[in-house]
């Protein structure tokens, strides 16, 4: 869209939406599913997360965010912490194929959901996802710290059908801050990868609907 037009989802709309959604399963899931969490005397919960196709079990503090579960307990440090409050996008992962901010989700609430992190994108033989390769080809990063989040967001952006034009890409990638300011090259990377990505059927049309 025209950048000069104030209409459309701004960074803050995107953030607001994602934050709101994150809160729903966080408070609702145990009650809704009737699956009471097993917790011991110290407040720790025995939980199982399905990450990159693998079931991973851990005893974690019930307050542990999905981001901290990945980083501090499952040695999946590709997802980054840049703010821990839903403002930067560095922690973006996919839950059931959609981009979410893992710092705003309690790990206990996404048991049984399909979690994909940056470590799960390349094929087993090491062949990179087209979006990963495009980020290298276009020099779509500098320090690389926001990059896992950018790449997961970028893949979702294409799958959502929000990568139709440069302006649309810019708008729908504005929830992922890059302080190194690689933005124009992130747009170029998404344009490179877009035609190479298989269209996944039934991908949702809207950002952040979990």
């Amino acid at each position, binding site marked *: 869209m025209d950048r000069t037009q104030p209409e459309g989802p701004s*960074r803050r709309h995107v953030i607001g939406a994602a934050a709101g959604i994150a809160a729903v399963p966080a408070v609702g899931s145990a009650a809704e599913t009737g699956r009471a969490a097993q917790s011991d005397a110290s407040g720790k919960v025995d939980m199982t997360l399905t990450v990159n196709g693998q079931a991973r079990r851990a005893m974690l503090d019930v307050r542990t965010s999905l981001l901290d579960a990945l980083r501090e307990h499952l040695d999946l440090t590709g997802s980054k912490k840049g703010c821990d409050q839903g403002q930067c996008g560095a922690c973006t992962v996919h839950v059931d194929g959609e981009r979410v901010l893992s710092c705003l989700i309690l790990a206990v609430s996404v048991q049984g959901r399909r979690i994909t992190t940056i470590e799960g994108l390349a094929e087993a033989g090491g062949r*990179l996802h087209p979006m990963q390769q495009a980020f290298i080809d276009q020099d779509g990063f500098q320090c690389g*710290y926001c990059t896992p989040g950018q790449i997961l967001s970028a893949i979702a952006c294409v799958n959502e059908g929000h990568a139709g034009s440069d302006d649309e890409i810019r708008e729908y990638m504005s929830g992922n801050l890059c302080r190194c300011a690689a933005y124009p090259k992130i747009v170029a990377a998404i344009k490179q990868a877009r035609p190479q990505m298989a269209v996944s059927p039934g991908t949702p049309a809207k950002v952040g609907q979990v």
Partner: protein
Amino acid sequence: MAYDASDDPRQLFGRPTPRIDGVAKVTGAARYASDEPVANPAYAYLVTSAVARGRVAGFDLDQARAAPGFIDVLTHENVGGQVKTNPDPAGKPDNTTTLESDKIWHDGQIIAVVLAESFEAARDAAHRVGVRYAAEAPSASFDSPGVQVEAHKPQTPDAKKGDAAGAFEGAPVKVEARYSTPTQHHNPIELFTTTCVWDGPKLTIYEPTQSMWGLKGGLAKQLSLDPKDVRTVSRFVGGAFGSKGSPTGRTAWIALAAKRLNRPVKLIASRDQGFTIATYRAETRQQVKLGATRDGKLVSFFHEGWEVTSRPSGYNVAGVETTARMYACPNIATAVNVVHADRNTPGFMRAPPETPYMFGLESAMDELAYALNMDPVELRRVNDTQTDPVDGRPFSSRSLMPCFDQAAARFGWSRRDPKPGAMRDGDWQVGWGCATACYPSNIGPAAARLSLTPSGKAAIQLAGHEIGTGAYTTVAVTVAHALGLKVEDVTVTMGDSDLPPVPVAGGSNNAASTTNVAYKACQMVRDRVAGAAVKAQDSPFHGADPAALRLQDGLLRGPGNLSEPLDKAVARTGGRLEVYAENIPAGLPPSAAQGLYEGKMVMSRGTGRKDVTAFAFGAHFVEMRVHVRTREARVGRVVSAFAAGTIVNPTTAHSQFMSGAIWGLSAALHEATEIDADAARYVNDNLADYLLPVNADVPPIEIIMVPEKDDRVNPLGVKGIGEIGITGMNAAVANAVFHATGKRIRDLPIRVEHLL
């Protein structure tokens, strides 16, 4: 390829090369400091002061101790005397303290460190710490009651020449104006983290840093350890921009905590804490007076600055050292004042002196162009010079006008109607502005270890810093090309103080310092291989002049298109071929090497040399669009040209220039840390309220790399490029806003309310 006898190493560079660490960065494999796995860590959470001035009268710790998972808490009461205060970013001993005593210097100062079994438990316990304060009314910034103002203490005397005041008096055309720039925080996306692990007397610190050896040396001093026992590791840094250049107060306490607990301790400071436990760019005020003849030649230059700092530190950036050197002028006077307030100590932030001070100068130059009724590009041209106006030394090279001319042509500047408000596009007022960019060309002493195997694999090790500049790739490119190998055949190891030291990755010295030492190491390898070949009966080069031999295309080659396979030539040197190179740039004293190993900031600075003054130059052209009714200001497009000597890797250089330019747009239109004047507290201390550009804010940006050959700046002709992009851009935007609207905005950032 044929044998190439050229001795000009610059031919090795300039081929676009993708980052060798790219795969690690796009797969999550790159380990940033807080990603390093440590066994069974305890977690630290900081408690920071809720008042800006006074004392801690006491703590109420019962609630915290009762929190599940609580282990320990450090305060001045139990550990106060056990750590020496870290110096300020300039290396001076006077700095704000943390747990050393009950003294509170600024809001958000670290006053306690809570340790617990998990991150969640530590955060919970920290929030239960009760603090009793003996608070006093703080001074927040300029104009606050209680601030102390004093002239700064410059390392070299402030630039002064002729009679600036008298010449200004008599000048036929004058501009006199005051400008201001706001407080800014670096806000790298990576948080300030520290993990400390002890192994007997040996301490390992995993912490994002721009100075592996500086952090090592600094912490050894603070903790009274032998530097040999301190190791720092930071293989990748998640953005730095100056914020990770000097040790901060947090690290020593985490090390001490790990010692007390006999267990690794991990700290991940929160985003808001990052605003007060590290440094920032202080707000400035400036006065500029320019006097000129009617044909635009400057006759008088005066630039004075005021900068905020903490109570104890005299830290200042004194950008007049740069601005006084921009244009030919016979009469020059400069001054800088520091204003002590109840704030944390500021520090280096991307182009620390040039970002604020070039705003003053380049805005004033635009005002002068209007006063003269002269094109702003032509005003730069009539005042261009190849001689440093302050010292009278030649510039090592200066391609300012080629930058202006190439960028102007690309931008379409000749179509500009100079009258403010004359250009319109529907409901948008359109304005075009330009400004000079510049950054001094610095280089430091550095060391590196290089090995070459008979199978043609090279490995180079140095304690370099990958903060996003492409440092791994820069070194790989140098070694590959100097040894006649492919980039894939070179392994680069960096980010560990167990490796040979290089300077702080600051002052844009990294590329110059590391490529020059890497090239020197390659020369040593070549000398060994060539020396062995000319002595060997079985070599085609037996008895030849070793200086004529080159490592090219995976071969040892010589005149007459003779060559020998690398495996034979290298094996002959006695198996494993390894060299240790040290490069001390010309003009630095021999003690520079010692400083390097002590982690001191030793540098040959572009303005401090005896032979030449060394700067990179550039020119920005910006289109601003201001809506006639909403007064929303939008950047339409940007063209920036830079001439910075040898470009080592155009791929990463382009990214550095481009992101610098975006930082400049941000400095003009977005960024400012808001300060509560009563509480002396940062208000917008998070990433939603501290306005940074998002993808949708960034317009098309075109970067032109103007070829430049510099024979004097350093042997490889490399000038730094990481910071120049931001300089002058804030003024180019303000100048374009003036052209669009007729409103001269002298206080940054420019926002809707200034354009009503």
